[in-house]
């Protein structure tokens, strides 16, 4: 839901920028968004997308449209799901039983 709202917010920014460009003949919004997203795309977006398993065109399109709202969750998921063999060693702390999880 959070990601959906972020995408929605990004969409509103694009629509607002387009309206500004068409009505006020001022393309500043589109230029800023394109520059920001383009920079993110080159520096981290495409790299993250490819590592996540997305195809290059999809990575470019999504990053140019949604910027960090697209690549940041992917990056976080990659970090959370990248393991070494040490992460799979059984310990007593793999999970904690809830306090009233057992029968009274």
């Amino acid at each position, binding site marked *: *839901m959070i*990601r959906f709202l972020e995408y929605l917010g990004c969409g509103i920014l694009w629509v607002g920028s387009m309206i500004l460009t068409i009505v006020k003949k001022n393309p500043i919004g589109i230029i800023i968004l394109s520059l920001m997203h383009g920079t993110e795309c080159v520096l981290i977006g495409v790299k993250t997308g490819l590592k996540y398993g997305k195809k290059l065109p999809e990575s470019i399109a999504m990053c140019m449209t949604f910027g960090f709202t697209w690549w940041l969750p992917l990056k976080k998921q*990659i970090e959370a799901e990248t393991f070494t063999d040490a992460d*799979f060693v059984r310990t007593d702390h*793999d*999970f*904690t039983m809830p306090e009233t999880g057992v029968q*009274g």
Partner: protein
Amino acid sequence: MPAVYDKNAVVITKAPALNYFHNNVTLPYDYGMPSYDERADVKAIKATVRKSLDDLDRETGWKAKFKGQKILVKPNLVFVTPKGGYRYDYAIPQTTDPRVFDAAIEVLNEIVSDIVIGEGSGMVTWAYAHMAGYDRIAKHYGAKIVYFEEMATDRYFCPKAECGQEVYVPKIISEVVKGERLYVSVPKMKTNIYTGVTLGFKNAMGTFSCNMRYRNHTWQIDKKLSDLLYLFKPDLTVVDGIIGGGGNTPGPNFPVLVDKIVTGTNSVEVDRVVTEMMGFDPEKNKLLIEAGKRGFGDPKVKVVGEKEITPFIPAEQSLITERFEHNWPGVNYFVGHTNSRAPKLTSLTNSREFAIEMEKTCGGGCVASLGTTFEVMFGSYTYPLTKLRHLNIIVGNGAEYNGKLYWLDREGKAYSLEDLKNLKGMTLVCGECSSPAKDAATPGLWIRGCGEVNNLAVRTMLAMMPTLPGQFDLNNIHIILFGLIRKYVIKLFMAAKGTPTEPNFDAYNDGLFTIPELAAKNLDCDWIEAPVPPLTKEQRIEAVKGVRFLAKFLF
């Protein structure tokens, strides 16, 4: 033809003791990439599943029966709740571990010609399959994935059935029934509040559409599920016992480290062995008793491997427990039944044990559904807000004493209808049979229907507001909402076309859905095809009206 084995076997295979908690509910992002196959947990699970199936083949020759066949593989997909969905520090182990499912499909894919993955979780299967990653597994192996609740149904009569004589199943199950497709059940090792355990053949509950599920979803549920074995049964069962689930499943359950994969060719025997491994006596499990009574077990089955017992927390099919009272101090509970199974009321003051005995009269019905619902609310982040909420719950048609009806509280004290009407706070009256107490219900809180779980859960949660069930995680709720709308639109469209995806809701009581008189030659059949005639215009309108978004509030 379904696979017929000369001898049946159950193989128990131990997996290395690793930490399997990473991605035990949802597939990781790198599924299908080399890094996924290099993970220690994935390698261990794949090796264990393969060894178990190879050992089973040596005992039974199942691979020869499956060679070149078409198969339907059914996981046990319930809710998919990753860590953080509930206020526990683990992902809820209710659904077949997608890593185990993938490992099973990998082996099967080497043998068979066509794989269909099918499931009906009772809620929004598309969304949960997407969240768990089953759609990615299907794509990876070029298999088709189908969601049973979105499929047209076929009807069958099962003359030998005690409870479920008329059965509606999704079209693809007809291929299994007629022997055109073999059926592989891949359940999770877990307890179940309705049936004690839910394993290989109980997994077939997912082939029922909602309205078919609600029929006799009561004390008769064990009979109904066992009767389904007359129609079709698993040709192969692979039980995911890597991380099991104990407690009040399908509510959020508790992980149990088992580290086992159990495979077998006779699902009743597999379930019997696994039940024992979970620390329960299979001879006392009603579901297994019913299946055994119908002759679906195999006393000559060979068990390979060590039946090591890992105790599971049992499901509590009761609201008269110390745990429930501790967790929900504001919830009062009254139960009373008059039927052939209920104890006779001989006094207005009885014991707690007597109240429990009264409650057990229909343990697999509303009581179990309430237990699940309260377990969901208990695990949710909103629990501190709901813990002290006051609610009165009435179940049953009342126990008769001196010509008057009474309901017992937890300590066995009897309350008349007048007493119940004077209770303070909101009152929920559960189930169609409880209609004698409907006047005591707060408006909108008489839950009609018999065994209609969704309606009961939604209204109970409304009565206990504010509640946000843990499975509606903020990260996933848009997927669930989209899935709900998708399901609703597909079902509406199919109903309008005259090929409904389920029978109209008809569980207004716990009566049997019997079949018309049959010719003598049919009485000895396990099943008879009973095609439903094309729907008339009026019936189509009824079918469209009958499609429910979630629960119908203006019953």
